[in-house]
């Protein structure tokens, strides 16, 4: 990770507040997402919002940006009443927002995305492109204006989102978890941009789960818990443990490195029976070409022992997704073979793969791992419904019994087994997917792709605990994550993916962090 020079935070003179929220509340139907929120954002500061999944951070941002209207309370912008009727209002008043989920149109070019929603009249794309390039240069955000957004990497898309906001020269810039999908390098430069923008007098509001980012850039922090402000800090870098405990409403037993610490604890192997020896999974020269003929995976060879956790580090888009699709049986390698427990599964269907004792926690739990409109109980047995078959009909009673058992064992918190899966919070959805995959009969290999993305610390802890337990029982685990710290904390060894190849391998030890980071960015170590 390259260090970027960031002014020491928390030392700025208190600036006049630009935007204030007084007694703001927001309910969705009977569900109260926010209540009694008092908060102010000042020009020149980077104000971070911290909180568990579902704490109400995105909701708060959406209120400021006019996507939702508050149920109670009032906002003031530069002393004037501010009640946006929609994003267009907010934009007109100088408020811009980068959303948690991209709001780009993949089919359009970068420049069209930037111009979309702007003027309605005739476009002079060339002139606009020059203007945008100048702006991008000012902030060090390189863009190819005529590329199609769908072809861009995640990091590049994030840049488009930010330039889209900066183009409007906002007074308040809101960033909702902007770093969740970025690689260390990119995070560094994004934080620099935030600083730069704040220095120009703008209020930067940033939602994040990453304490390291707070340490580096936050001037102030507000912590939300279940829709209320549970703590504030004007010198966050020094108060990390307190912030963490305010966030999860538990005493933070561990130090500032809360996440990593929590996981490190899970990593400690208890003295138990040794896992059965033998190979769990083997990749033998696996290559994959996408539909346009681009090589996405290039002769990947890797072998995982039972009981071993192998981490895959790498910037997203370097072949991890393709590997995940192949192991899930949703894509076939162009070349090479792969095995689990000695069985060749190269051409196997998802069903045969599951039967061979392979569990898959896909990186996209909504699109691949679950069906939001089906019940929790149905999702727990999505691939194993037949076990409840009686004359072709489903024995619902037996299914519910078993579902309740799983819900208890895996600590899935939900109103019941029959609630829609989609109504669970992210962490609980992930726990349910893990419950299903970890109970795969004769499980010997588990792929866990980005299992903690978007989860809060409490949930991350549980998820890694479950994965760790599985490894101890002899399951070989391939753990794909974009969080290098997590990989170092959880895995036994780490392979680095770059451009579809294994660029190198290291033991999972913090001393190799620099080297791994370098490999991830494509430079040789």
């Amino acid at each position, binding site marked *: 990770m390259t260090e970027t020079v960031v002014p020491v935070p928390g030392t700025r003179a208190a600036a006049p507040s630009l935007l204030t929220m007084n007694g703001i509340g927001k309910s969705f139907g009977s569900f109260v997402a926010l209540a009694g929120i008092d908060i102010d954002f000042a020009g020149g500061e980077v104000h971070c919002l911290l909180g568990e999944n579902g704490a109400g951070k995105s909701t708060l941002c959406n209120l400021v940006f006019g996507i939702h209207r508050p149920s109670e309370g009032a906002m003031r912008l530069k002393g004037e009443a501010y009640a946006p009727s929609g994003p267009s209002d907010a934009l007109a008043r100088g408020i811009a927002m980068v959303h948690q989920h991209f709001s780009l149109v993949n089919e359009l070019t970068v420049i069209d995305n930037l111009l979309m929603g702007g003027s309605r009249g005739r476009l002079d794309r060339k002139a606009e492109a020059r203007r945008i390039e100048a702006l991008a240069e000012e902030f060090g955000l390189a863009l190819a204006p005529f590329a199609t957004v769908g072809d861009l990497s995640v990091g590049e898309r994030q840049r488009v989102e930010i330039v889209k906001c900066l183009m409007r020269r906002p007074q308040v810039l809101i960033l909702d978890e902007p770093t969740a999908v970025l690689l260390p390098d990119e995070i560094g430069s994004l934080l620099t941009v935030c600083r730069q923008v704040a220095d120009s007098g703008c209020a930067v509001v940033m939602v994040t789960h990453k304490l390291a980012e707070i340490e580096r850039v936050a001037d102030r922090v507000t912590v939300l818990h279940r829709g*209320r402000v549970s703590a504030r800090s004007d010198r966050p870098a020094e108060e990390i443990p307190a912030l963490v405990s305010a966030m999860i409403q538990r005493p933070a037993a561990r130090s500032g490195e809360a996440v990593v610490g929590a996981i490190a604890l899970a990593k400690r192997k208890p003295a138990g029976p040794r896992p059965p020896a033998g190979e769990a999974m083997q990749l033998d020269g696996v290559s994959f070409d996408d539909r346009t003929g681009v090589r996405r995976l290039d002769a990947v060879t890797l072998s995982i022992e039972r009981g071993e956790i192998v981490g895959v580090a790498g910037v997203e888009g370097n072949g991890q997704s393709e590997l995940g699709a192949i192991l899930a049986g949703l894509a076939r390698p162009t070349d090479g073979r792969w095995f689990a427990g000695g069985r060749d599964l190269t051409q196997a269907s998802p069903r045969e793969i599951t039967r061979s004792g392979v569990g898959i926690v896909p990186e996209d739990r909504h*699109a691949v791992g679950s069906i939001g409109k089906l019940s929790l109980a149905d999702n727990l047995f*999505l691939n194993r419904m037949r076990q409840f078959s009686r004359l072709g009909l489903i024995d619902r009673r037996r299914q519910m019994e078993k579902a309740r058992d799983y819900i208890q064992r895996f600590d899935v918190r939900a109103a019941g087994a029959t609630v829609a899966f989609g109504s669970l919070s992210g962490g609980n959805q992930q726990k349910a997917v893990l419950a299903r995959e970890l109970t795969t009969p004769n499980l010997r290999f588990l792929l866990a792709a980005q299992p903690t993305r978007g989860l809060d610390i409490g949930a991350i802890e549980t998820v890694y605990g479950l994965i760790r337990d599985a490894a101890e029982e002899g399951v070989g685990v391939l753990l794909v994550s974009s969080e290098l710290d997590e990989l170092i904390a959880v895995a036994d060894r780490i392979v680095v993916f770059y451009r579809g190849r294994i660029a190198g391998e290291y033991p999972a030890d913090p001393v190799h962090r620099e080297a791994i980071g370098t490999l991830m960015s494509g430079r040789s170590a």
Partner: protein
Amino acid sequence: MSVASRSAAPPRLPPGLAGLLLPVGAVLAAFAVGAVAIMALGVPLGEALTAFWRGAFGNAYAISASINRAVALALVGTGFVFAARAGLTNVGGEGQIAVGGVAATAICLAPGIADLPLGLAFLVPLLGATLAGGVWGALAGFLKVRVGTNEVISTLLLSFIAVWLLYWSVQSEALLRQPMTSSATLPESLPIPVTTQVPLLTGSYSSPVTLGLPLLVVIAAVTALVLSRSIFGFQLKAVGLNPVAAARAGIAVGASIVTALFLAGAMGGLAGGLMLQGEQYSLKAGFSSGYGFDGLVVGLLARNSIAGVIAGALLFGFLRSGGISMEMGASVPSALIDVLQGLIVVTIAGAAYYVDRGDRK
């Protein structure tokens, strides 16, 4: 730290009740509009209503004819609901009826069929119609799986193609047109032999409900059970809601799609077979009479409930009978029935919002 409080829920109709009130309300509203229109046309309302009643329920024949029509509509609608469970919209009912009718006629007129024992004489052509409709539907499924063609588009196009194939088959003596005994021979098939006609339940033409009714009851019951309780129904639902996740879970997504559209088409084909072998007895261009589209609307309005399909089919079946009678008895143009039908569809489709708002996502 205090936990966010939960305020009392605003009153909302229970989904089941709303789901029932909605269509009933829409129908009543449409009828009210119809009554106004009738008076605007200068027809005494009482006279029109009497004629409507007589035509819809006045005698055993009227009731039977309405039921037969409802059976055809309900079959198409049931097929629609079946496909809808897998997330597929089958708008090809008209074409599936047409190919069903063509196949049934061809088999009925094939040598030897009329002499088959044990009712096979009418069962074999019906089966042929069912298969033909099924293949027509499966074609769209196959395309969807193979090239990703949207089934709304392919079933609609296949429908138009089938309608003109039917036209061709009764125009050409090499196909199904009856031999030209005189130069005035109409472009129709020969009448099918009596043994291949679908038997009437009462055996009397004055109450000509065909065997199609019990057949429908069985099919509807089995469909309802399969969709709500079976593994297959669960798999269809999974495929419909999220095909990628379903594939990952080991469900054969492609096969499910083809099967669902095959079954939907098969029910359309069976409807065609019943219309031909149970009522019309000879094949003519246009014999499908728009029932495919009416059946589609019935399926759409039923909003995934088989009971809803039956109710909608009966409504449309009796509505048309009453409409015919109203035109004859009270000179109210039966185009008014189209207006009512359109209004019902539009009202229910629009009001669905208020019912679905609660349970989305």
